[in-house]
């Protein structure tokens, strides 16, 4: 009896897709559960903001009429296999015109082949791994790629901090950390600096004293920690305890309020590169930050800002294309020049990687303060 009931389940799946009125559908694949669900929440908030903004004005202009927009958000659990399923559902069942997502590079890498084969344009807000867009026509991203961040920090360390010697401690088990660390090493050397320590650890390690003691021996002026916010405070605390005086540098993995909550005083005076800063002098960003704060009671993080830009990039491409057609939207996206986003001006120079700037943020008295902008 139970078995027969189970056999009816697939019918319910079909029943689940209720017919919808004439509206423009855009998919979102975000990790609203799993290990980085905070990012998924930021994405969800930003998408809700975009949807209400565009529909309050009557919708997006497609040719000669205005069409309301509906974003369909699905949870990819930060797992590649779930992302593949989410992309299949959004493309084939919901028949979306374009997709915002996914967030981590491993998920985007699993979803991209499906979108590419179906000819659905994708804008990933957060995937910084170069492989995601490489050799693909329909995959774009709103963020800069890992190598660029390594270069930004190297440039900042040599020109602004006038550092001659540097060391790196990074998580060798994560693609993100490894990618940035290697580019920093190469660029820092190219800019006339000297790498005196290049140490590794594995995700979830909590004792870094062996590596830090080794680094202390060579006494670098800057220590680059391209790791995530949940590990960095521990690393800096242990480094200071060992007497390391180097200025600590990081990448956008530092961008989370938890960083100063966990680290406290020890975080002050250190710098990291980021996609944007809430203090940035840019009218689009100011409007977005004010609205986001009013609605959700939070200062938006980079994931929220990049999601907002990704969704608006697609909406602008729809308006430029003048028709609800994925191929035309893709062509309009590829031809984007000087799109004014929260995270700076975005131009696609042929491929799916944008030409855009980065900012360097200083941690001061437990706050993130805009320090300088770096342009490629």
């Amino acid at each position, binding site marked *: 009896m*139970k*078995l027969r009931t*189970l056999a009816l*389940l*697939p019918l*319910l*799946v*079909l029943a*689940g*897709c*209720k017919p919808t009125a004439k509206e423009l559908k855009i998919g979102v694949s975000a990790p*609203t*559960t*799993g290990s980085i*669900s905070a990012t998924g929440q930021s994405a969800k908030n930003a998408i809700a903001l975009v949807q209400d903004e565009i529909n309050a004005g009557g919708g997006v202009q497609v040719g000669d009429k205005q069409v309301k927009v509906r974003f*369909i*958000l*699905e*949870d990819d*659990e930060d*797992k*590649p*296999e779930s992302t*593949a*399923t989410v992309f*299949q*559902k959004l*493309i*084939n*069942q919901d028949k979306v015109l374009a997709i915002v997502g996914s967030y981590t*590079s*491993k998920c985007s*890498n*699993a979803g*991209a*082949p499906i979108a590419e*084969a*179906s000819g659905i344009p994708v804008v990933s807000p957060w995937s910084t*791994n170069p*492989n995601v867009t*490489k*050799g693909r026509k329909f995959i774009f991203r709103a963020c800069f790629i890992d190598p660029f961040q390594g270069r930004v920090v190297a440039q900042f360390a040599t020109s602004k901090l006038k550092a001659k010697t540097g060391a790196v401690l990074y998580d*060798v*088990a*994560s*693609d993100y950390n*490894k*990618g940035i660390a290697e580019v920093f090493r190469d660029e820092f050397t190219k800019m006339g600096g000297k790498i005196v320590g290049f140490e590794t650890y*594995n995700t979830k390690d909590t004792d870094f004293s062996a590596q830090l003691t080794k680094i202390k021996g060579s006494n670098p002026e800057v220590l680059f920690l391209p790791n995530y916010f949940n590990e960095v405070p521990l690393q800096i605390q242990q480094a200071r305890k060992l007497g390391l005086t180097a200025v600590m540098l990081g990448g956008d993995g530092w961008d989370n309020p938890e960083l100063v909550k966990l680290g406290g005083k020890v975080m002050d005076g250190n710098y990291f590169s980021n996609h944007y800063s809430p203090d940035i002098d840019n009218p689009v960003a100011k409007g977005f930050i004010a609205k986001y704060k009013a609605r959700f009671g939070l200062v938006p993080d980079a994931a929220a800002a990049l999601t907002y830009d990704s969704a608006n990039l697609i909406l602008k491409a729809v308006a430029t294309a003048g028709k609800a057609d994925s191929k035309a939207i893709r062509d309009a996206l590829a031809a984007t020049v000087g799109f004014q986003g929260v995270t700076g001006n975005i131009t696609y120079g042929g491929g799916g990687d944008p030409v855009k700037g980065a900012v360097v943020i200083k941690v001061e008295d437990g706050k993130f303060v805009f320090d300088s902008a770096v342009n490629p």
Partner: protein
Amino acid sequence: MSTKPPPEHAAPPPELTPSRVRFWMVCALILALALPLQLSVDAGLFPDVLNPYYLHLLTIIGMNIILVASLNLLNGYLGEFALGHAGFMAVGAYTAALLATKALPSAAALPPVLGTCIILVVTLGGAMLMAAGIGYLIGLVTFKTVGDYLAIITLGFNMIIVNAIQNLDFVGGPRGFTGIPKNTNFLAVAVCALLTLGLLRNLIQSSFGRVWVSIRENAIAAELMGVSIAKAKNWAFTIAAAFAGLAGGLWAQNQQFITPRSFDYIKTTEILVMLYLGGMASLSGSILGVVAYTLLMELLRNLLSAFAPQLAEWRMLISPLILIIIMLTRQTGLLGNREWRWLRPRQGA
């Protein structure tokens, strides 16, 4: 002495028993449905009813059936608690990915259908061999341990395999392996799953399988009867690893991208959940467990996104809750120790 009983080990004559007929009929039926399904989805017929999303779910179900059925060999029939199945899957996935991208020509350079078939046979064969080899080695190391210790050792091997791949730069390391050609489709998975089920069904009723069950029931008694426990266990490990490798090989060429983290203990846990949901020592249970779990997760996704999008994050909470309820009301899983008739080699067995 005309009434001399036939020797115990004499093989039964290959007559067409009802269960054998049933088995072949089910296989024929599934293939007869799978082929037109694959062709019509590829051709884009009936896009509203037969869309690639459903076919994708069926493909995942097929690959998970291979994984769960082979783990059932160790955890159900042999009665051990192995926790390293995703590790063997990783070995198979990376072997197949390497063969498909580095060693073999692309399918485009070969005749259309036959070329893909040849590539699949070579990559999947390589994946099974490699995984079987690793499974054999692990079996050698672990033959003295039982119970919790075996669980920890196999878990350790799973971690070693994942960490080793993370440090191999030529397969992409932690960045993952990109650019794998898409050679697997639903039809290939359906054929592989049926082959796996057929092989396991016969194996379990053979002298091999009976030895495994005897070890599970009473290892000392089995040893007294002349069973070489170490050898029998090693065979079980090798065979289970080979099929996990097969699933991994299919997985890699379906998803076109693999990353070491996808094969860590969380994946093993997922396989275990489906196994226990379906029931131990039952191939029918392995099938039902996979189908029920996969459909449950997707059904919740669809229902929540259509009717209550604000509750979408609760999916990961609701589905384990349903699992807990099923396990509380049916401790043996949906079909523990029971078999559908087409998977029973002999009547009453």
